[in-house]
Each structure stands twice: as C-alpha cells, then as structure tokens.
C-alpha cells in the first residue's frame, strides 16, 4: 500500500480549520464541503436552536422537528446546496427547513392513522356487506331450518334438502331419486307444510325463551 500517496491526499484535500468557533458560516460551509466534517458539527451547534424552532412551529411536535433538522443537516453535509453570494447561509437554511417541515406535515396529514384506517375498514364493511348482527341472524335461521328438516320423514327430508340446499329443481330431483314428477311435487308440498308447521311451533318456544331471558336480564 502506498501510504505516502494517502498522506499527501489527506494534507492537500482536508485542511482542518484551526478555530471553527470564530469562523463565518461561509468559511465553515466551504471547509465542510472540502472534507472537514467537524465544521458540520459547528454549523449544527450554531443553528440548531433556531432550526428546531422553525420546524417545531410548523410541525407542532418536538421529536418530528428533531428528525427534520437532522435530515436537513445530513443532506447539507452530503449534497451541499447553498450557493455563497446568493442569499445568507441562515436564510437559505431556514427556507430549506421550512420546505421540508411543510412536506412532513402534509405527508402526515395524508397518511391515515391506525384509528382512521380501522374506522374506514368498518365503514367499508358496512357499505359492502351485511353487518355482524345480520350475519348472526342468518346463521341462526339456517341452523333452525336444518334442525327442523331433520325432524321430517326421510323422503320429505331428502327432497327438501336437494331443493333448498343443493338448488335442484323438480326434473333434477326426479333424476337423482329415480322418482316420478307427481311423487316429487307431492313430497315437496307435504314437506314444506310440515316444515312450516314445525318452525311455527319452534318459534313459539324461541319467543318464549327470548322473553324469559329478557325478563331475567
């Protein structure tokens, strides 16, 4: 390894500033751009208070303001951006901090919070489908129907199951059960009547149970 070349490079390109505390912003900035990283620290120490206040006044949050200040100084160290002679360093710095803070504030406003996202999801669900109560009612009705069906004679049970749970029409039931049309229609009719009667009886019992539960609640 050629150590003399490295040594020469170090001396030529990075000349540490003797007294950073009394240097002007422009001197510090130029030395930082030339590679004296400690000048960034001096610039930060010098302007951090005002930089933080500018960001906090826009963002309303101390931590977020700190983040923006760090971001801007990091970007300053990495890419520079100020042109000496155009405007004062502080004027330029404040404008950059303000722009960055406004960007942050708008991004935060446009990003939904967890609570907003949850609320939207609930609203979307309500708009597009049945609510939870309706789903429970549907499920209970289906369960009661199945229970009533199981109490019917086997032939009626079979025909009604094919018709209501497998969407089979009369010709399909005839084919699957090898039965005549009259027989299928008769079984469907008697099965429906028996089912209706059974459900009516059950409803009286459920209503009675519900009333009793409500009275005891």
């Amino acid at each position, binding site marked *: 390894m050629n150590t003399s070349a490295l040594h020469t490079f170090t001396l030529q390109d990075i000349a540490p500033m003797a007294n950073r505390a009394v240097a002007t912003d422009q001197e510090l900035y130029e030395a930082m751009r030339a590679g004296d990283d400690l000048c960034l620290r001096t610039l930060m120490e010098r302007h951090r208070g*005002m930089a933080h*206040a500018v960001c906090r006044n826009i*963002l*309303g949050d101390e931590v977020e303001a700190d983040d923006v200040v760090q971001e801007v100084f990091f970007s300053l160290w990495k890419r520079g951006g100020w042109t000496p002679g155009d405007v004062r360093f502080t004027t330029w710095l*404040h*404008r950059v901090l*303000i722009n960055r803070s*406004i960007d942050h504030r708008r991004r935060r406003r446009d990003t939904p919070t967890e609570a907003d996202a949850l609320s939207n999801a609930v609203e979307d669900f309500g708009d597009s489908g049945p609510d939870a109560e309706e789903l429970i009612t549907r499920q209970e009705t289906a369960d009661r129907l199945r229970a009533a069906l199981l109490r019917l004679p086997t032939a009626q049970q079979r025909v009604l199951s094919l018709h209501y749970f497998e969407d089979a029409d009369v010709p399909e039931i005839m084919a699957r059960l090898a039965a005549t049309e009259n027989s299928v229609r008769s079984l469907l009719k008697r099965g429906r009547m028996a089912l209706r009667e059974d459900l009516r009886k059950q409803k009286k019992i459920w209503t009675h149970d519900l009333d009793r539960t409500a009275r005891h609640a």
Partner: protein
Amino acid sequence: MTLTELHATLDRLGPDLSAWPSTLAEPALDLISVSDAAKDLFAAATEASLRADATPAPRWEATATTAP
C-alpha cells in the same frame, strides 16, 4: 392569504402555526410553501419569538420608597 395578512396573523397569534386554527394555518402554509418572502417573514417571526423567550423577565425589587 396574502403576505400582509400573514404578517398581521403572525403578529396576532405568534409563529407557532401548529396552534393556529386550521382555517388560518393551511392558507398560511400554502403561501409559505410557494413564497420566499413569506418563508423569510415566518423565519423572522420565529427568531423574534425565540429571542423574546430567551430574555430574562425583569426582577422587581423593593425600593426605598416602598420599604417600611
């Protein structure tokens, strides 16, 4: 919001835009985001407020006329 209105509102409410009602803060931020003059005005108001906060409050001391 105009630059003059921003100036007046900064004088009245101070530079903490997060404490302003959003009906004033949003138009102010719209102006500040596009105008360098508005940015400089806002920065100057922040600096003045920072200086005022740093200035120690005057101490009231008893004088010969108020002493018993």
